[in-house]
């Protein structure tokens, strides 16, 4: 019998490379080459010499937007985490089957709404004369004169949280459902309240899944153009809008590339965490 360990390593080598070749070709042409060129353009002067001027210009023009982007995405990530913990926690520990069923059915809907649609819906929903203000005025919660538009950073955060929280909740609820129930039942039998059980027993066991969900959301939100473009296109705005503006209005590929590389640095930390966690999980399995 010819076991895996005694397979012909030379033949294996060629088979492995042949299997990989089609994907590798696409990656080289549409990822490695453009990434290298993008970096070169961001660091190159018109006369061909190396320069940091495009980065300096990016910081001159867009430092506020860079910080704005970071603040929006971080705030959204934190809120997504809190909403996801609350919903997934209730789905796991809820004692009222009807309430659990209602929440389970309703929370998932935004999962399949495209960002561009979420942006469009929020744009009409959160405007000064939008439905939200009409409802608040109609219920007497605010005066008509104090109605204000939420089409600014708040609108972006609301759209991001609304769109991404179900994704993290889905991952988190799955992880919580697979936890051994003995500890939870023991704690509940000893009189621990549900919030305590959630914080002290459940969350520590699903921390990895929560962080991975949040990292994937963080990286996704950094690259969304449609939501800031529709809700808050004016300065300060998110960097994706700036990139589109540099390309469409000025044809300024150098600064656009520099801005893209700065976004990449923001995203890379989060993505590294995801890969580290996922690879470690498989190696230990």
């Amino acid at each position, binding site marked *: 019998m010819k076991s895996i360990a005694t397979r012909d390593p030379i033949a294996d080598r060629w088979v492995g490379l042949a299997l990989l070749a089609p994907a*590798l070709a696409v990656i080289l042409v549409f990822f490695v080459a453009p990434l290298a060129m993008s970096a070169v353009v961001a660091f190159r002067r018109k006369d061909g010499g190396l320069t940091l001027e495009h980065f300096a210009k990016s910081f001159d023009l867009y430092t506020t937007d860079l910080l704005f982007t970071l603040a929006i995405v971080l705030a959204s990530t934190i809120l997504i985490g809190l909403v996801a913990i609350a919903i997934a926690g209730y789905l796991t520990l809820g004692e009222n089957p009807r309430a659990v069923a209602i929440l389970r059915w309703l929370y998932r809907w935004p999962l399949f709404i495209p960002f561009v649609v979420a942006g469009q819906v929020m744009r009409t929903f959160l405007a000064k004369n939008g439905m939200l203000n009409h409802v608040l005025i109609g219920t007497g919660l605010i005066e008509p004169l104090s109605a204000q538009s939420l089409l600014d950073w708040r609108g972006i955060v609301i759209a991001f949280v609304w769109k991404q929280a179900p994704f993290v909740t889905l991952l988190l609820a799955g992880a919580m459902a697979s936890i051994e129930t003995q500890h939870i039942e023991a704690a509940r039998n000893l009189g621990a309240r549900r919030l305590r059980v959630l914080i002290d027993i459940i969350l520590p066991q699903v921390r990895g899944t929560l962080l991975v969900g949040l990292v994937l959301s963080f990286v996704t939100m950094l690259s969304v153009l449609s939501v800031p473009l529709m809700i808050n296109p004016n300065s300060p705005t998110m960097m994706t809008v700036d990139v589109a503006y540099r390309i469409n209005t000025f044809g300024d590929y150098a600064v656009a590339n520099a801005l893209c590389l700065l976004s990449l640095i923001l995203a890379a930390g989060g993505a590294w965490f995801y890969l580290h966690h996922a690879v470690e999980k498989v190696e230990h399995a």
Partner: protein
Amino acid sequence: MSFVHSSPRVYLGHGLETAGAWLLGALWILPLAYAIWTAFHPGEYSTHFVPTAPLTLDNFGRAWAAAPFARYFLNTMLLCAMILAAQLVLCTLAAYAFARFVFPGRNLLFALVLLQLMVMPDVLIVENYRTMGALGLRDTIVAIALPYMASAFGIFLLRQTFKTVPKELDEAARVEGCTPLQVLWKVYVPLARPVYLAYALVSVSFHWNNFLWPLIITNSVESRPLTVGLQVFSATDQGIDWSIITAATLLTSAPLLIAFLLFQRQFVLSFMRAGIK
């Protein structure tokens, strides 16, 4: 898991929880409910909730007439099908290579694939736009699809799944005389079916929603997908007619929402079994 105690206090607690769940659920669904309300009612009710307001399909008719939605739908479906088919083939082959074969530079090449996960597609838009120009593919559906065909997420997810398949199954298939491709097809692919389903849903959902790259690389009705077509309705020179905007918005996302409604149980189970974590 249930810790039910039958006392009036518990009943009251249950009532409050039910009310709280309805409230949170209603708040969560409110933007979508609002879009549905506005799309199905005349413009004067777009920001006023009047239960007796008449229903209408006029907004959908006007939205449909304002943009070539039929063509956009066709383009989007072609795009999603093309990307998914290519991804399933390329990612499966690459994942199998990384999971079960030893070849020079394997770790380096895998790191290269993983690097794609860290890089937002936006970084590459400028250069990919030039590449598509050089290939003569600008303003085509193929140009939208090409950069996404070797999905890093797909390769990574499938490689992780294939690594959990017992090697004994692989060996047994080889002893039976299967070639590597037959082993892949008969052993690995069937065992990874939930992962394929979850990945397909994620991929279709992502590419149905994708906006920035199609916006830049296309400039004609023949190649634009729905999301880019929807952008027409956000232009200020169209005026703000929210009924039409929300009708167009619902038209865009309706297929995904209906698919979700029909397959949500399978979707959630696949998602959880796939271990996208």
